[in-house]
């Protein structure tokens, strides 16, 4: 392929920590492969991403949009890393890795882990040649024979021999877990069973689970046996996560309550044994909005999944809170409008009442002055007359007129009081409407109904004038 060497290409925008580089850093750390192989996969994906970004930008996207789309197209990071690992893992390795997956995930997750391996079952409608033409390596994942009772060393030897590979046992790690080369293991009906199920029997016989469970790695054509704890210690990596959307920006090296919550969440939910006790091998440090996690490779993917789950929950919560806030504002607006409407209606009623009272007072005043004139006239005639009979009659009429005068005076006082009460009520209603119609944070965009505002301002002037006029009467 020498003819394809040293082609040139237009300048590509790169920077030491551009988003593509950042994504590749995380992705590479999740690749559980030898360093040289990781770098080759990284180089190939970087070439793909930068070409894709160039194409998308030619189509009109901005650079950040193009990068986001190109990275999104690659799918979930941990899943992609797993696909590469599965693709690279040879037939024999894949079969043996099933044991590893079993031990790491534990009994309950074994079946799930096995399901992650690409199915080799013929698809419906596959031809005989498709089924028989090429032997699919994934088909052969079961042991060919049962394993007879024996000591642990014999069992490991049997498993390795059945797969035709050399093996090495990290006895130190197993002894820490309380099992030894001469630990007795009962018969395992391994024939036809997947390696994962064989491992279930093995760990069950030995009474091991969790970090103490036996697991295996296949490196450099040697099958290694040890505990989960041992391999976890050997496969520690550090991954930095940008959690600025989950943890409010704080000072560097400063723990916020949210950061502490996130740290506790991970250490409680994801493989708790890694973070606790004197033998803790993992560490979580939150510097500002950067979360640095030191943990075994197999756990890093789980941590990413946990953080993504938190993001999804926060997104849902945020959406629910926004909806509740909008509903509260809408309800508040409806209540407020109803209240304004009711207040306005009451304002009009009181205004009309005031008009009636004013008219009544006006008529009463007229009657009062008429009775007063009549009373003055009768008093004058009563004092001027010398006729006893006429004086008696004028005296009677005078008494009646005085009663009328008193009655009308009482009526005037009552009307004045009612008018004062009504005017005060009108002022209160005016004030209420002004308060209700004042724009608040929740109702900033709302505008006052012109009708109420204009009328109420006019009414206030009228009320004040009326009050002054009324007091002068």
């Amino acid at each position, binding site marked *: *392929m020498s003819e394809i060497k040293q082609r040139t290409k237009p300048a590509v925008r790169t920077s030491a920590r551009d988003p593509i580089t950042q994504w590749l850093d995380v992705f590479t750390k999740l690749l559980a492969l030898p360093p040289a192989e990781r770098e080759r996969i990284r180089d190939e994906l970087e070439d793909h991403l930068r070409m894709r970004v160039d194409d998308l930008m030619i189509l009109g996207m901005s650079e950040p949009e193009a990068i986001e789309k190109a990275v999104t197209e690659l799918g979930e990071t941990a899943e992609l890393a797993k696909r590469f690992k599965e693709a690279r893992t040879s037939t024999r390795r894949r079969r043996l890795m099933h044991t590893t997956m079993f031990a790491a995930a534990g009994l309950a997750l074994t079946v799930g882990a096995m399901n992650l391996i690409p199915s080799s079952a013929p698809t419906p409608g596959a031809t005989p040649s498709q089924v028989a033409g090429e032997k699919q390596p994934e088909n052969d994942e079961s042991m060919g024979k049962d394993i007879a009772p024996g000591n642990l060393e014999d069992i490991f030897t049997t498993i390795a021999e059945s797969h035709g590979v050399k093996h090495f046992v990290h006895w130190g790690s197993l002894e820490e877990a309380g099992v030894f080369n001469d630990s007795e293991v009962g018969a395992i009906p391994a024939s036809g069973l997947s390696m994962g199920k064989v491992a279930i029997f093995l760990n069950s016989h030995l009474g091991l689970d969790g970090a103490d469970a036996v697991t295996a790695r296949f490196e450099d054509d040697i099958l290694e046996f040890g505990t989960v704890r041992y391999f976890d210690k050997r496969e520690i990596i550090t991954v930095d996560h940008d959690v600025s959307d989950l943890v409010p920006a704080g000072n560097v090296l400063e723990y916020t309550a949210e950061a502490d919550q996130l740290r506790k969440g991970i250490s409680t939910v994801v493989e708790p044994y890694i973070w606790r006790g004197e033998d803790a091998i993992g560490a979580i440090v939150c510097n500002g909005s950067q979360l640095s996690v030191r943990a075994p490779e197999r756990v890093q993917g789980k941590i990413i999944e946990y953080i993504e789950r938190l993001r999804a929950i926060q997104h849902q919560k945020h959406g629910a809170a926004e909806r509740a806030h909008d509903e509260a504002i809408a309800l508040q607006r409806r209540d407020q409008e109803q209240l304004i409407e009711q207040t306005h209606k009451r304002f009009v009623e009181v205004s009309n009442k005031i008009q009636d009272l004013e008219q009544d007072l006006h008529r009463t005043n007229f009657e009062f002055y008429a009775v007063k004139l009549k009373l003055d006239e009768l008093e004058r005639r009563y004092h001027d007359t010398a006729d006893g009979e006429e004086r008696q009659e004028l005296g009677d009429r005078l008494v009646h007129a005085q009663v009328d005068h008193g009655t009308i005076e009482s009526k005037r006082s009552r009307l004045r009081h009612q008018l004062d009460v009504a005017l005060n009520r009108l002022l209160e209603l005016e004030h209420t409407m002004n308060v209700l119609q004042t724009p608040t944070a929740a109702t900033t965009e709302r505008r006052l109904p012109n009708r109420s505002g204009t009328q109420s301002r006019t009414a206030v002037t009228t009320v004040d004038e009326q009050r002054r006029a009324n007091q002068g009467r």
Partner: protein
Amino acid sequence: MARKTATPQLTQDHTELIVLSVLSEGPSYGYSISKQIAARSEDEFRIGASQLYPLLTKMEKQGLVETDWEEIKSKSADPDAPGRKRKWYRLASKGERRLQQRIEAHKRFTSLINSFIATDPAAGAVA
């Protein structure tokens, strides 16, 4: 108005056949392979990077393809600085045999399917 037909779903064997077929026409690299597949299928088949690159890795491990690296130098970049790397794939002889097997298997499969849908005497022809 023409009825739109559903896009056929590719099995893993189909995907392998298509990639091998593209490479049988000459060396190519990942991004170019995915674009050729989309173009030749009128955008009906889209093999994403998350599917394509692991498949190419697997094919390399199985000896179906041979690979070579090219250094992409930017015109404006420092001539002494390392360039971006591009991985080229070329069909190996084992890959050519695998391609022929896949083609034969596909023909046989199609023939069997046709035997079910071409026997209606009233229709007189394959539907």
